[in-house]
């Protein structure tokens, strides 16, 4: 699913990934842990096709990331530090829009909102009026509606209450059980470690198995 060999990705001239070798199989939930600035977010963004690979070989699913970045992106769902929402639109409008861009059906879109508990009293509330946790759940509903094959999540539990965190973990386990690949960067080691099937340490732009 994900196969990196000595991958280098740069931010400006800085080698944020300095020769990453990593293999992740379908159905795995891999936790990326490491200090701030280690390259966890950069690794996720590179997997998402947002940053170009300048050296090494990288395959995501069955595609060459260097040659087929555009194609890779259609199969990837990334939830980064920002939520990717339109704050003037309602929860319903946002999930509908993001689901529609991925060709999701009406039922799939509704199911995603129900799953993340944003289908009821919040559905017609503009995102700008939501709390941070509610916005996070809305962003996760958009991700679920997109039915990605590779899930990339950067601090996904941030801002969520306990019930939402448990539900998110269930969703991730279910996605992995359905054959998706999940890569999570998190500082909440206790929760993320119990969720992950494997833990990988990112240090100074490189990766070490733990």
């Amino acid at each position: 699913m994900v196969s990196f060999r000595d991958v280098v990705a740069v931010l400006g001239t800085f080698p944020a990934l300095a020769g990453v070798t990593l293999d992740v199989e379908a159905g795995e939930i891999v936790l990326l842990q490491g200090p701030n600035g280690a390259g966890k977010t950069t690794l996720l963004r590179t997997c998402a096709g947002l940053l170009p690979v300048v050296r090494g070989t990288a395959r995501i699913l069955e595609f060459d990331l260097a040659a087929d970045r555009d194609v890779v992106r259609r199969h990837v769902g990334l939830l980064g530090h920002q939520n990717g929402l339109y704050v003037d639109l309602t929860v319903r409008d946002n999930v509908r829009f993001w689901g529609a861009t991925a060709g999701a059906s009406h039922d799939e879109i509704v199911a995603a909102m129900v799953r993340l508990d944003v289908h009821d009293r919040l559905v017609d509330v503009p995102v700008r009026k939501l709390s941070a946790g509610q916005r996070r759940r809305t962003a996760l509903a958009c991700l679920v509606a997109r039915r990605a094959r590779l899930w990339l999540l950067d601090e996904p539990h941030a801002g969520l209450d306990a019930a939402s965190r448990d539900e998110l973990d269930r969703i991730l386990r279910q996605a992995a059980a359905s054959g998706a690949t999940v890569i999570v960067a998190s500082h909440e080691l206790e929760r993320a470690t119990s969720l992950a099937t494997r833990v990988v340490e990112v240090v100074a732009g490189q990766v070490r198995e733990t």
Partner: protein
Amino acid sequence: MSVWKITWLIALKDLRIERRSRVITDQVLPFAGVTMLIFAFALDADSVLERVAPGLIWLATMFSLLVLVQRAFSIETDDGALDAMRVAGVDARAIYLGKSLSLAVQLLVLEVILLGAAIVLYAQTVPLDGVVLLVVTLLTATCGLASVGTLYGGLAAGIRGRETLLPLLTLPAVAPVLIGATRAVEAALGTAGAVVSDGWPWVGLLAVFAVAFGVGGTLAFGPLIDE
């Protein structure tokens, strides 16, 4: 999903955001109106105002374009939505065309209102034989402005200092539209002895500009917004 379906999705999304946030009615229109008024006070001679009114309409439109483009891309960058669209593999051509379409609709509404304001403020009249020329000018000029605005808006979106960079990039590029549209509207309104037939070559220029930037923007937008 086809490029056109996604284009439509994005254009509707932007127009829905505008309907909810009312930036045009609450901010852009008052700004354009104040611009027109200030020009009227500054020039303060009916004969001069009558002569330059077509140019003033388009000048106010240019300044308003900058505000609209800033807004069109701030909604994409504020919470990382443009990044999210790139990750989602949304075709960059569809993003460009959708945002251009939405911008064109907003600009058209603005231009019609500004034309009405000019008729009132600057004592302009629209002869019957100039109506078709006027409508075609509005449409072609709008397409050109929307194409350029979206292209440079996308270029400036991820850059620090984009608020000052955008006018620097956009205004020189839309200068041909300012000139062509002004001349065509002068012909449509019969300003300073111009006749309707004088305006059609300028409409031709606007159409070429719109097509060139529309096609170029569609092809260039993807690499521009990618890292």
